[in-house]
């Protein structure tokens, strides 16, 4: 190794960050670089376990992938790919700037990398929150509101909090339409209490193929207004007493108002579709604890004309009395929305075990997202050190190593993007 006599001119005093147990700056840098490459090799193996899960499941259940990937928006995936590639470029440029002692450029590159990483996570947040709202989640939380094509799914196990079964009919359309209640969005107290409708409600048993069996059970009881307070949760803690006092006979029905269907839909078409369904009344059927909710359909026939206009938002302005028929099955069936003008692709209900795709999606992108988060903290640390002027052409190892880590994060996304978003 070179001793001080062979040092280049002008840089005789070496960086104070060269540890005394290394021969020189080169020795320290090489040791660190070897370490980071070993770490990166480990990262490849770490992620490979998830790629094994992905490939194995795709080989055996390709239909799940070709169905479920449509829930992912290629636009967001592509933007994130570009963001990461750009941040990789600035990270690599940061190394160059550090090597050449360009402090301002170094700070700018590090700051840009951090900004891009945060942008990546913001887009990921948008994607994740859509999926959380629509219950497009992993494992047993997989309970989607809409199919990837935008049609509403009636395969939901947990229909929506507060509604055990419901029929919605669209006030603006002659055809029945169906959707899920978002109880949190439903102001049951004020919106439901005033709604009245003249309906005949029936519970019809269906067999496994979804075929109706003859002879339905009419639901004659109307749920009392007090029940809505319980559903709404506004009288927390007193719900049980109210049930006793009101003593509704289950099953009971009542007209309901649905302000929104599955908000935060992804595409503009879906959003229009959601908006078009804003003003709806429907039937909410409440079951007792011991009643069979599986394998039944709820059918309702209502005379719209008798429904008053209890709230301003409700666009119930039918001049002529129209009769609306709707039904909602609790068994897995699907219903193509009546809003055909919005070009909803009919994909049908998800194939069996579709939740596995989402499990793999969340595991892979989640682990990757954690790496991005770690990268942000590392680059903030480097930024602070760069501002302090601690990096010199003979001491830039941390920048180089962090950049290498950042490139591997980019590398993994380069594979995740086509594998998750671009399935044909």
């Amino acid at each position, binding site marked *: 190794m070179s001793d001080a006599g062979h040092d*280049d*001119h002008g*840089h005789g005093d070496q960086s104070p960050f060269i540890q005394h147990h290394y021969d020189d*700056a*080169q020795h320290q*840098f*090489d040791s660190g*670089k*070897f370490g980071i*490459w*070993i770490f*990166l*090799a*480990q990262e*490849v*193996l770490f*992620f*490979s*376990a998830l*790629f*094994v899960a992905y*490939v*194995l499941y795709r*080989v*055996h259940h*390709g239909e799940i992938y*070709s169905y479920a990937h449509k829930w992912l928006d*290629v636009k967001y995936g*592509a933007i994130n*790919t*570009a963001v990461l*590639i*750009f941040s*990789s*470029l600035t*990270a*690599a*440029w940061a*190394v*160059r700037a550090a*090597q*050449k002692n360009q402090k301002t450029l170094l700070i700018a590159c590090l700051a840009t990398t951090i900004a891009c990483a945060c942008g990546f996570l913001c887009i990921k947040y948008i994607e994740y929150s859509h999926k959380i709202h629509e219950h497009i989640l992993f494992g047993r939380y997989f309970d989607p509101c809409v199919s990837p094509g935008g049609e509403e799914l009636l395969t939901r196990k947990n229909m929506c909090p507060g509604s055990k079964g419901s029929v919605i009919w669209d006030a603006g359309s002659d055809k029945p339409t169906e959707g899920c209640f978002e109880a949190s969005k439903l102001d049951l107290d004020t919106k439901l209490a005033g709604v009245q409708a003249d309906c005949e409600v029936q519970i019809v048993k269906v067999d496994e193929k979804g075929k109706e069996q003859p002879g339905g059970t009419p639901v004659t009881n109307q749920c009392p207004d007090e029940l809505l307070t319980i559903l709404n949760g506004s009288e927390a803690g007193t719900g049980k007493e109210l049930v006793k006092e009101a003593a509704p006979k289950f099953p009971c029905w009542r007209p309901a108002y649905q302000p929104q269907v599955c908000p935060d839909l992804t595409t503009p078409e879906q959003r229009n579709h959601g908006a078009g369904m804003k003003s709806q009344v429907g039937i909410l059927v409440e079951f007792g604890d011991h009643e069979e909710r599986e394998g039944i359909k709820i059918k309702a026939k209502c005379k719209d004309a008798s429904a008053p206009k209890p709230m301003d938002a409700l666009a119930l302005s039918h001049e002529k009395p129209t009769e609306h028929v709707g039904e909602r099955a609790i068994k897995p069936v699907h219903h193509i929305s009546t809003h055909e003008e919005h070009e909803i692709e009919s994909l049908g209900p998800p194939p069996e075990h579709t939740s596995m795709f989402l499990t793999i999606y969340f595991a892979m992108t989640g682990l990757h997202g954690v790496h991005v988060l770690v990268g942000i903290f590392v680059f903030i640390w480097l930024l602070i050190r760069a501002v302090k002027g601690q990096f010199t*052409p*003979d001491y*830039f190892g941390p920048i*180089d190593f962090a*950049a*290498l880590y950042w*490139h*591997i994060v*980019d*590398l993994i996304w*380069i*594979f995740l*993007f*086509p*594998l998750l978003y*671009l*399935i*044909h």
Partner: protein
Amino acid sequence: MADHADHHDDHDENEISHVASVKTLVGTGGTLLFLTILTVLATKIDFGANINLAIAMVIAVTKATLVILFFMHLRYDRLFHTVVFVSAICAASLFVGFTLMDSSQYQHTNIWTPSEPPAAPIGPRPTG
């Protein structure tokens, strides 16, 4: 080590490690972005599921190679680092490959439901 030390500050020189030129960095970044657009566009054309997957993977591997060679400086780095990294990729390929070889062994394993037990020989032995 810089084996061709040149004492001009404006040159892309560093005593310790290779300095990537601006041309290399921007060129690599630009190519990566171009390939990203290409892979999105390729998905829109139907070549058949397998060929589409192959195209997407070839583009992804190309992008990964560019990142490794130029952004990660592996082209100018020690050969040993290449050995370490390529070994890891080989090991990962082995994981995937061996799992796929083995997985078909369990294709016919059913999860029994008491009401519908699978037929013999894998089902329960006939009683009586």
